[in-house]
C-alpha cells in the first residue's frame, strides 16, 4: 500500500500543473448557463486546448492514476468541467473504442478528442428509467437504413449535440434485455425534435428527444443488431467509476469555504454546525482515499472500474446531499436565496441519489452482485 506517486506520475502532475497555469489565464469568460451555443463553444474549445496539449484522451488512454491526477489538478486549478464533451469522452467514445469497427473508430473518435463534435445520450425513456431495458423506441430495417420512432428523455446537451448514442428496440418479440441495438444518430437528421426539459433548479440541463421516423444508416450501428444491451453495459460502469473523483475534490474545497464563511459571520461558535462540518471533512477525506483505492484497483485489473464503483456512487451521492444541507445551515436565511451558489448547488444535489441509477437500484446491485444475495421471487 502506497500513496506516494511514482516519478512518472509526478512528472505527469507537474506537466499538467504547469500547463494549467499557462492555459487557464487565457480562457475566455465562462458563458451564461442559459447560452447553449456559447456553452458548446466554450466546452469544445477547452477540449481542443486539452487535445493540443496532449491531454485530449486522458479519460481513455491514461492510466487510472493519471486520470485521478488529472481530475484532482483540473479541479484544484478551477479548470472547466468536461461539460458538453461528457458523453463523447466518457460514454459514447469508450463504447465506440471498444466495440466499433476500425472505420467507425476513425470516423468518430478523433472529432470527439479534438472537441469538434459533441455527443449526447439517448438511453432513458419516460417509461424506462430505472428499468432501462424495458425501453420502447423502435427501429426497423428499411434497405441500408434503420427507421427509428419513439422518444428519449434526460438527454443532456441535446440542443447542441452533433450525435446521439441511441439505444433502440430492433426485436420487439425478444426478451427485454435482447433485441436492443446501439446506433449513432446524427442529431441533424430529419424527424429529430428536441424539447428542453426544465429541472426543479430552474435550468434546462436536460431535454426530451422525439424521433419521428428518423433514418439512420445501418453502418452507424455499433456492435451487432440486437446486441445493444451488452454493448451498452461495456461502458455503463464508467459513469460510476472515478468519474466523481473530481467532484470529491470540489466538495472538500466547498467544506473549507463553508468553514471560512461560518467563521466570518459568527456561526462557527455553534458546536452543532462545527461538528457537522468536522464529520463531513472525515467523510470526504475517506471518499478521496476510496477514489485512490479504486483507481489503484483499476490499474491492477487493466483499467476497468471495479464493482466498488457502486459503493462509491452510493456513499458519495448521499454525502454530497449532506454537504449541501450543512451548507444551508451555514447560510441560514441565505439558504433561501438563489443568488447564492450553494443554494443552487443544493438543488442540483437532489438529483444525485436518482441519476445514473437511484440509490435503491444501486443498493440492489451492491447486494446481489457484490454480496451475492439472492434475487427475490
Amino acid at each position, binding site marked *: *500500500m502506497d500513496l506516494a506517486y511514482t516519478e512518472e506520475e509526478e512528472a505527469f502532475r507537474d506537466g499538467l500543473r504547469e500547463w494549467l497555469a499557462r492555459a487557464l489565464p487565457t480562457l475566455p469568460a465562462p458563458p451564461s448557463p442559459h447560452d447553449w451555443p456559447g456553452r458548446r463553444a466554450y466546452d469544445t474549445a477547452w477540449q481542443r486546448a486539452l487535445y493540443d496539449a496532449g491531454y485530449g484522451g486522458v479519460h481513455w488512454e491514461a492510466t487510472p492514476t493519471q486520470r485521478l491526477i488529472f481530475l484532482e489538478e483540473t479541479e484544484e486549478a478551477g479548470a472547466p468541467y468536461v461539460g458538453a464533451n461528457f458523453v463523447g469522452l466518457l460514454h459514447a467514445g469508450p463504447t465506440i473504442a471498444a466495440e466499433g469497427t476500425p472505420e467507425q473508430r476513425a470516423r468518430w473518435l478523433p472529432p470527439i478528442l479534438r472537441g469538434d463534435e459533441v455527443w449526447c445520450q439517448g438511453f432513458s425513456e419516460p417509461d424506462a428509467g430505472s428499468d432501462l431495458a424495458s425501453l420502447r423506441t423502435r427501429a426497423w430495417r428499411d434497405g441500408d437504413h434503420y427507421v427509428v420512432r419513439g422518444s428519449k428523455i434526460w438527454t443532456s446537451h441535446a440542443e447542441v449535440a452533433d450525435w446521439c448514442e441511441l439505444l433502440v428496440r430492433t426485436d420487439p418479440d425478444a426478451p427485454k434485455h435482447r433485441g436492443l441495438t446501439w446506433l449513432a444518430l446524427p442529431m441533424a437528421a430529419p424527424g429529430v425534435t428536441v424539447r428542453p426539459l426544465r429541472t426543479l433548479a430552474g435550468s434546462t440541463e436536460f431535454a426530451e428527444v422525439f424521433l419521428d421516423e428518423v433514418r439512420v444508416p445501418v453502418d452507424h450501428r455499433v456492435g451487432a443488431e440486437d446486441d445493444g444491451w451488452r454493448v451498452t453495459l461495456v461502458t455503463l460502469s464508467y459513469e460510476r467509476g472515478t468519474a466523481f473523483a473530481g467532484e470529491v475534490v470540489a466538495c472538500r474545497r466547498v467544506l473549507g469555504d463553508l468553514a471560512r464563511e461560518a467563521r466570518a459571520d459568527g456561526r462557527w461558535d455553534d458546536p452543532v454546525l462545527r*461538528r457537522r462540518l468536522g464529520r463531513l471533512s472525515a467523510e470526504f477525506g475517506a471518499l478521496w482515499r476510496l477514489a485512490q*483505492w479504486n483507481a489503484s484497483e483499476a490499474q491492477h485489473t487493466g483499467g476497468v472500474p471495479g464493482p466498488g464503483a457502486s459503493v462509491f456512487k452510493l456513499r458519495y451521492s448521499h454525502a454530497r446531499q449532506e454537504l449541501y444541507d450543512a451548507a444551508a445551515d451555514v447560510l441560514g436565511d441565505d439558504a433561501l436565496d438563489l443568488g447564492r451558489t450553494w443554494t443552487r448547488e443544493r438543488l442540483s444535489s437532489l438529483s444525485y441519489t436518482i441519476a445514473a441509477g437511484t440509490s435503491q437500484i444501486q443498493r440492489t446491485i451492491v447486494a446481489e452482485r457484490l454480496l451475492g*444475495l439472492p434475487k427475490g421471487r
Partner: protein
Amino acid sequence: MDFQLSADQRALRDGFREILRARFGRDALRAAVDAPGLDRELWRALGKAGFFALCVPEARGGLGQGAAEAVLVFEEAGRALLPGPLVATFLAAGDVEGAATGETVVTAVSGTLVPWLAEADVVRGDVTAAEPLRSVDPLTPLHRVPGRREDGPDVSLLLAAEQLGSACASRDAAVRYAGEREQFGQPIGAFQAVKHLCAELLVRTEPARAAVYAAAVTGDPREAVAAKLLADDAAVRNARDCLQVYGGMGFTWEADVHLHLKRAWVRARLGTTAARAEEELAAAL
C-alpha cells in the same frame, strides 16, 4: 501510487487470520465469554507469532514493519474479537521488557478508562484511584480513573483498524445469515428491505477501510482521527444492522452480534472519541 495490498501484506494478513482461526476460533471466543480472564497462553502465542513485535525495529529483534502492516493485523484482531489490551501492549513492545514476546501484558489509561487493569503486568498512566465498573462488554474488564490521559493518534489508528475488522465481521455475518435464514418461503436476503440493509453494511466498511489504510500509510495524525470517527460509526452501526437482520436470534446471548456491538461501544470511548474528533477536524478546515 499503488494503494492496494502488496503480496507481502496479503500474506501477512492471511497468515495472521489463519493463526487467529486456529488459536482463537469461535469455540475459544465463546469459552472466553464464559470464563473471563486473560488467556496468557494465547497472549504468548500472539507474541510468538510476531504480533506485538511487528513494528519493533529489526535491530531490536522486531519485524521492522510499518503502520500499514499494523492496521492489517489489528483489523484481523477486530474481526476475531480478540480480547486483551492489544493496543497498549503493541505500542509498548519497543520499550517494555517482555511485551514484544507476549510475556508482559501492558495496559494504559485511555481517557478516563483502563481496560484489563487487574490482568496487566505494566500500566501506563496513573491508576492509583482506579475503580472497577461492570463492563458492558463481557470480553473487556474496565476501570475508571479520575484524571484524563489523552491518547496519541497511534492509539486511535489501531482502534480504528479493530473497528474496521469488527464492521467487516458484522457485515459478513449479516450477509451469511440473510442468505440462509428462510421466512415466507425464501431466504430473507431476497427481500429488498434486508438486501438494502446489507448493502449499507458494505457502504459503511469500504470508505472506513480506505480511511484507515490511508492514515496508516501517510502517518497523518488528523487522518488517524478521521479514520477512527468513520470506523467507530461503521462498527457500531454495522453491529446494530446485523442484529436487525438476525431478528430475535440476534438478541440472544449465544449469537456473536452483541459481542461486536458491545466491543464497538467500548472502543468508541477509547482513543479519540467522536465529539473530539469532529472538533479537531473542524478546527483544521
